[in-house]
């Protein structure tokens, strides 16, 4: 079912490590958060429900969080979300990255890999993605 359609991605990225490297376009929306720990599971579900094909979340690695342990919270929450997505048959539609400001240059590349993976998964059937 592969087509030329570019997958719609919503990404929540931490201001301190990743935001500068990623830009929004028609198919990818980058939402700046002050910390990966700010991303509530509800927001990931809402993005998918609203028609996104995938959700990309980026925050700082261990010991790199400006808010002591926001990144740990991010990992804990996103693990639960990905388990829930597995239960719902939506595995692979969430990508969580831990990046230091130094390796953040690789982020556009990682986003591309994720985009390719979503292409293979096909369009999300939750809602015809328009945003």
């Amino acid at each position, binding site marked *: 079912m592969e087509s030329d359609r570019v997958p719609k991605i919503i990404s929540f990225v931490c201001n301190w490590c990743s935001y500068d490297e990623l830009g929004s376009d028609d198919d990818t929306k980058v939402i700046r958060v002050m910390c990966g720990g700010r991303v509530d*599971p509800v927001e990931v*579900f809402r993005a998918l429900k609203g028609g996104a094909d995938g959700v990309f979340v980026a925050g700082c690695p261990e010991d790199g969080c400006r808010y002591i342990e926001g990144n740990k919270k991010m990992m804990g929450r996103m693990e*639960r979300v990905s388990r829930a997505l597995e*239960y719902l048959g939506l595995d692979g539609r969430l990508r969580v990255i831990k990046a230091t400001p130094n390796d953040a240059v690789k982020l556009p590349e990682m986003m591309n890999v994720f985009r390719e993976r979503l292409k293979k998964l096909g369009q999300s059937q939750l809602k015809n993605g328009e945003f």
Partner: protein
Amino acid sequence: MGVVMHLDEIIRLCYQCGACTGICPMRRVSLFSPRDSILNSRGGDMDPGSVAVDTAPCLTCYQCAAECPQGIDFPEYVLASRCAGDDSLVTCAVHGTVLHEIQEIMASADKGIPKEFAGETDDGSDIAYYPGCIDYLNLFYDDVGVDYHAIGDASVNLLNKMGVKPRILDMKCCGHDALYQGDKNLFERLSAYNTKRVKNSGIKTIVVSCAECYMMFKKHYELENVNVLHISEFLDPDKLEIKTESDGGIVTYHDPCRLGRYCGVYDAPRKLIKYAGAEFVDMKHNREKAVCCGVSAWLNCNDCTKALRAMRLDEAKKIGAETMITACTKCLTHFNCLKNEIENNGVYDMKIEDFTVFIANKVGAGK
């Protein structure tokens, strides 16, 4: 949907005696009054949406309905107004509505409720087990210290002990929370899917371990020719070999409103708990008079209803209960949440356990 009375009919029938407000648990802790809500909607200038807002504190616990001399089903009135209004109460739900989002996704996704549990299952069986949302609760409510998944394990193991290998159908959430939050559309999508699944599967009996799912299948679904049973009704003490341990201290049982007042299941769980060798004592308010845990469909978790939970746990403490059993995952969540609060550290040192888990441990069918 099982709306039995129209709003106008209720408004006409009520003669403002106040018996409902007298019994209402919310009245003990707030100024909410079902009598007043009916009075407020008189004169026809209140649309269902405003009625829904006015009656938002109602726990739909069903205590008042039994008292009303006019036979008015106030919780039904609340439900009807929530469903008829433009705006559902979804946004008032606690925990950032996370379960509601999952249920919405579930309604359109391919998969719904996970089916992996301990014990043996058989896809050819005509007896099904429906676990409900326990695995999702495990993901997002683990901080209350309850292992929800164990309820499913215990249920399948107990059914195995009865000589039954149940089938676990690919089903979705029963839609209880969606309906009682007023999201009728979501409820209808979920129930249409589930009803079709059940009918096409040729299942004759569905065994349910959660009070809410049980009530939904009984009252809000049309599953003709399918027998819906709560696990306490299905289990036969004579077939379960109880490895009696009388060490557990006093055990009590909290009747969930969905199982008790809504469906009249009072004796079956008590019988099994007693049979399991426990020293069983009822709390002051029991059976029809059992007080609600204070939160239904994730609405109204606040200081007022917290007082209700504390009163209920105090009742259990008063009779010296070491274990309080309940058969509803939500009651389990809300009581454990209160018990584990920092300011309650050590105040309630009883165990609050699910019915199936308790029985399974007694018959050696636990994890």
